[in-house]
């Protein structure tokens, strides 16, 4: 089960770094945080799972979206 989640994490990280639209990359990063929170729960670490879910899929996504909305959104133009 952990091997499957790790392969999904590698695929998501490759999509984050090579997407043309930066908003798609932010959503993929948020899904990356969610999957790693599930991985922490499977590995018997509930404290770290709550912290990663609240911080990665919450505060970090808000900060990234703020950095995008007042500047540009396209990449590799």
């Amino acid at each position, binding site marked *: 089960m952990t091997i499957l989640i790790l392969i999904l994490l590698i695929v998501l990280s490759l999509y984050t770094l090579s997407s043309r639209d930066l908003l798609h990359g932010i959503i993929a990063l948020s899904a990356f945080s969610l999957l790693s929170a599930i991985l922490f729960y499977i590995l018997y670490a509930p*404290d770290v799972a*709550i*912290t990663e879910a609240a*911080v990665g899929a919450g*505060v970090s996504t*808000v*900060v990234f979206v*703020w950095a995008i909305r007042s500047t540009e959104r396209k990449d590799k133009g």
Partner: protein
Amino acid sequence: MKEKKYSIFFIFQIILSLTAVLAVLLPIFLSKVSWPDLARNYLEQNGLQESGARNLVSSIYLGYRAFDTLGETIVLLVAVSGTISIISHSGLSLAKGFGEDEIKKQTYNSISGFHRTELLDVVTGKLGPIVLIFGLYLMLFGHLSPGGGFQGGVVVASGIVFMALGSKTDSSTWLQEGRVLAKIEAAGFLFLILASLSGIPGGFGFFGNPLSATEASPVIYIIILNIIIGLKVGAGIGFMCIAMLGKVE
């Protein structure tokens, strides 16, 4: 220039870098040493009596290694104040090519513009207090179940962002004002310093539990530390997110 790209020097560089990476990483794969379990055995037997918390992770970062928590709150304080000072001075920058109308157009980035829908009001404005209550629950019960100061603080910050997103311009709560959140964060840091020094008069050392000698349960100290850290983290990160939304000047 393309045929010079794959010269012998380039291939030599690639082989050298791969050898270096493998020489560093290969001992990790080939090591057969098992993870030592001395610390886990000690904590399983003595963790509950010495600190009173059933959650062993809380008893570590608030009891045995509380100095790391002090360092982390200092890093959070520096990061939040640095981010807010960088943001709030950039609207007045006189960079090349910026005119007056460009500054007006680009600093008008508050949410309460003309693109609001009812969905944002109903969902986030009504869910905000529920998220705040969940954050308070995580803070107060961090010693019995998964949770604690940091987790509760970040959820409280999310609740503050919800309430800031869901409020119209004429009905804003006191949680949204910048002065209140900054004062809560500064007060939280002051109380953390006071709580860390409270064990010294009794002879328990820095961050020592002053209730170890009395008959009260030593878990009250951990609950107080959880509340202080939760308020500090929540106010700090909430203030940073509200400053990014543009609702505070």
